């Protein structure tokens, strides 16, 4: 799949933002006044910024309001609804904490739950697609959720919790890679099932339907850049998980250390998310004898 910067930014930033909001909703860290304002400002910027980034890849964004209507069947619609609900609930909680020094504990809990739910709906946009075997698995949801919670803990300054959660996210990431590598073959999609010609013999492309490129090839048969996938995986794992977890768990807490951990984590997260898209193979590639 084409790793469009808009979707990488959207999933990475909104995941971090909603993760941080969830921790703030639970009263971690226990802040109020201006300090709380700064925390909430960062969290809302990430979550809203991520959501706005997702509209950049729309062909026709003027209809965006209509995307709240089909929550009965569409995970994308559910995500939109839940994201707005989370932001409103958390907004109410934030106003209490920042301006009135009052904690609406129940509202905070519900809002935190709703934030995690939003990340889950984001993950389901990808995990629901049977056409992309690498994504079509519960590990996709675990990957999004574990990283969102770990990133949220990191930004919320919960050093020990963040270190442990990062390690858990690293294990999930590793499992998603190893299991995902095998899934296309496991599902049994081949050029023979795609064309139905397998009964006759071995099928291969003789002539493509068009000499140039098209939307399908550009969007779903993205084969550029997989060459360095293994190296990128190592880089992603070190920056996203190992370095920040080591800094958080092995050294005494400090602002500079936390800043390095955050920068490293976000850089690694972008690399991981780039791979999430670039390595995902869509079955339509079979009609072009490409994956």
């Amino acid at each position: 799949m084409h790793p469009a910067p808009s979707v990488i930014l959207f999933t990475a930033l909104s995941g971090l933002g909603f993760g941080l909001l969830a921790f703030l909703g639970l009263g971690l860290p226990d802040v109020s006044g201006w300090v709380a304002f700064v925390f909430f400002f960062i969290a809302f910027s990430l979550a809203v910024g991520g959501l706005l980034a997702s509209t950049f890849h729309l062909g026709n964004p003027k209809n965006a309001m209509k995307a709240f209507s089909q929550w009965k069947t569409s995970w994308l619609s559910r995500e939109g609804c839940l994201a707005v609900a989370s932001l409103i609930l958390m907004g109410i909680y934030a106003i209490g904490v920042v301006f009135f020094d009052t904690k609406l504990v129940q509202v905070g809990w519900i809002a935190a739950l709703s934030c995690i739910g939003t990340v889950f709906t984001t993950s389901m946009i990808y995990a629901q697609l049977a056409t992309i075997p690498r994504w079509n698995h519960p590990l996709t949801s675990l990957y999004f959720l574990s990283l969102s919670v770990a990133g949220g803990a990191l930004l919320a300054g919960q050093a020990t919790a963040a270190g442990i959660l990062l390690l858990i996210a690293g294990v999930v990431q590793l499992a998603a890679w190893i299991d995902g590598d095998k899934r296309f073959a496991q599902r049994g999609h081949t050029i023979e099932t795609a064309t139905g010609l397998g009964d006759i013999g071995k099928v291969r492309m003789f002539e493509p339907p068009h000499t140039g490129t098209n939307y399908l090839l550009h969007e779903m048969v993205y084969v550029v850049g997989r060459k360095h996938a293994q190296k990128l995986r190592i880089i992603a794992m070190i920056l996203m998980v190992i370095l920040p977890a080591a800094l958080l768990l092995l050294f005494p807490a400090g602002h500079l250390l936390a800043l390095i951990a955050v920068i490293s984590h976000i850089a690694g997260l972008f690399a991981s998310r780039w791979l999430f898209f670039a390595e995902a193979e869509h079955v339509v590639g079979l009609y072009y004898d490409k994956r």
Partner: protein
Amino acid sequence: MTQLPAQTTRKLGLVIDLDTCVGCHACVISCKGWNTENYGAPLSDQDAYGANPSGTFLNRVHSFEVKPEASPAQTIHFPKSCLHCEDAPCVTVCPTGASYKRTEDGIVLVNEKDCIGCGLCAWSCPYGARELDQTAGVMKKCTLCVDRIYNENLPEVDREPACVRTCPANARHFGDFADPDSNVSKLTRERGGMDLMPELGTNPVNKYLPPRPKDTMEEIDILAPLLAPVATETTGFLGWLDKALEKL
């Protein structure tokens, strides 16, 4: 809107005969022509006369080579457009309700006024039947020429999809699969019409007729005895060479 109908009154669709398709791409062109001038946004082209032309098409013809174990390879031309699936994943993923399947005839359509161009329906389609138009920013797909098949301004003979009307090899057939006596139901039964990527459970309405098995040439034996080789074994210098090389 994006909930699939439990059942449709009719099941309109195509039968595509892989045995007779000659790969002329006439269906591709007639589809592009009709659907650029009629229903919805035109099918745009980008850099049409430049170095890297590309454009939106609702129907494309792939060509495959199939190599049986013991006989020569066969070329099979393979037209591909929307299969108007009964369990269309492209409909249920749509966040705005722009994508829908009609209860009356099962045609899968996009209401372009509601489409946000997110592309998720194209991602969910295993067959690459949907293309986001790069100029209009809305999703385009085969409409089964919904503006022809019910169009009383057209002569009756023209009230079928443009691709079917134009096919010079008669490789494309249009009809109602819900009616067991329709031309398409009969063809599917008689020729073993098949689904593409059945393992994904999309239940396509359109069916593909596999190429008929090739017959094998029987040896005609009347003249064969007369044409038997005169020398069964090589003699002379060649015979010596043969034996010498054999020994090496």
